[in-house]
């Protein structure tokens, strides 16, 4: 039986009195594109940050391959992080570096300047940005172009696992579609395992192989994207139809 690439087991996380994760259990299989959906503030970002070690879980286990990710330190943690690429919600591009330097940031550890630049330009081309953008600074780019640069940086070193944090937030519908297509293409082409968090249902249908619904600090439902409409889960039904009435309480 194939082992999960990423496994979260009963992960808990609180911030002061606020319990955000109350026992998240989730398996992401190799080369699978898992999308975690859920309302704002339900702990989607905390879930992926727990995997990356950016947030330390209070309880539970996080496994990446055969490594206990939440306990990894030093060289073991560095080796673990080398497996990951991440596209942040706001791009999180380094303002002080040029576009190509952002994309080549990790590559520079093992490649010379010229070689890293060539590879960065190639990755930029892969996400639809010409070489004329390579020497610009992030602040000179539009939001959509910044997302593309973020995507190029995430895939630059051909990671085994890619995380996408709200990849289409703040983009117009057409640019959202372009980014969704790019994500689907690069994930399929690289054979990478992808974990995306979003509340954009268009993205879910374009990107996902499997979907997990996070609500109340736990995974309420998980299953193939094709079962989303017919699963009969009241949480999923309310969420995908965007209704205010249902088990998910909405503040008015």
């Amino acid at each position, binding site marked *: 039986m194939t082992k999960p690439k990423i496994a979260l087991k009963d992960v808990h996380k609180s911030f002061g009195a606020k319990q955000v994760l109350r026992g998240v259990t989730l398996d992401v299989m190799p080369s699978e594109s898992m999308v975690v959906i859920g309302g704002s503030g339900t702990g989607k970002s905390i879930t992926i940050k727990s995997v990356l070690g950016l947030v330390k879980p209070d309880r539970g286990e996080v496994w990446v391959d055969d490594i206990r990710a939440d306990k990894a330190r030093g060289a073991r943690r560095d080796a673990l*992080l080398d497996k990951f690429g991440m596209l*942040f919600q706001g791009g999180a591009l380094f303002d002080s570096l040029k576009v190509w330097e952002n994309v080549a940031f990790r590559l520079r550890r093992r490649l010379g300047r010229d070689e890293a630049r060539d590879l960065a330009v190639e990755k930029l081309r892969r996400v639809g940005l010409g070489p004329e953008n390579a020497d610009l600074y992030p602040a000179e780019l539009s939001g959509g172009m910044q997302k593309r640069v973020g995507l190029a940086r995430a895939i630059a070193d051909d990671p085994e696992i890619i995380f996408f944090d709200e990849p289409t937030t703040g983009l117009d519908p057409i640019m959202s579609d372009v980014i969704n297509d790019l994500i689907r293409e690069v994930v399929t082409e690289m054979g990478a395992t992808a974990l995306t968090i979003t509340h954009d249902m268009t993205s879910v249908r374009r990107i996902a192989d499997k979907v997990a619904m996070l609500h109340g600090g736990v995974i309420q439902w998980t299953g193939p994207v094709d079962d989303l409409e017919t699963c009969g889960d009241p949480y999923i039904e309310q969420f995908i139809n965007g209704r205010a009435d249902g088990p998910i309480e909405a503040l008015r």
Partner: protein
Amino acid sequence: MAVLSAFHGFLAGIGASVIGLLRATGALTLFAAQGIMHCFLPPWYWREVLRQMMRIGYFSLPVVGLTALFTGAVLALQIYIGGSRFNAEGVVASIVAIGIVRELGPVLGGLMVAGRVSAAIAAELGTMRVTEQIDALTTLSTNPFKYLVAPRLIAGVLTLPVLVAVADIIGIMGGFLVGVNRLNFNAGTYIANTVNFLEAGDILSGLYKAAAFGFIITLMGCYHGYNSGRGAQGVGTATTNAVVSASVLILAANYILTELFFST
């Protein structure tokens, strides 16, 4: 009963403040220890160190130079006025030189750089925290302490002494200009008095202080920026705290170091 309850409340308030202070001191100490450790452990980002040396040292030169120039000029006037009360106008050159290199050069230079650099570092790192750039560094297998904190600490400790050395020269020159042009001292005598009365220990103690101030300035900028709260308000608070804490710590460290040099 109400008095007892108020007394408990009063004690609880004091206890909470003390615990908060101890927690903040502990957090700062751990941050500083981690920062220092990464200054000595590879990999080193030398390009970042050079970039920070330019920002902290070179670009602070105008403000520190002007501060030193006017401080030296005012010091010459004040010492002349004070000295003339007991016929000791001749000590202007030597006291200006000693005052500048031992005290005013490093302290005023440090305070000016604290205002300029601590704030800039805290704002930069705070913005990086808020926009998830620091998280992005981690996901790119780069330790933020190595890439952000260590280069700034190294740059601060290395550039402040150079900056203060230049400020010392400019400050003494400020005194010289006033002494010669306004107070009618002989230029040659003024220079001779400056050089003859100045000892290596005077200059070195000022430069050691500058290195310590460089560490304090960059540490406070990094600490407050790195731990910045969310949003524009968080970054603003981090910037203010960085400047205030750096300035206060510079003055406190100045006293401690002066006591130390005074005893030896």
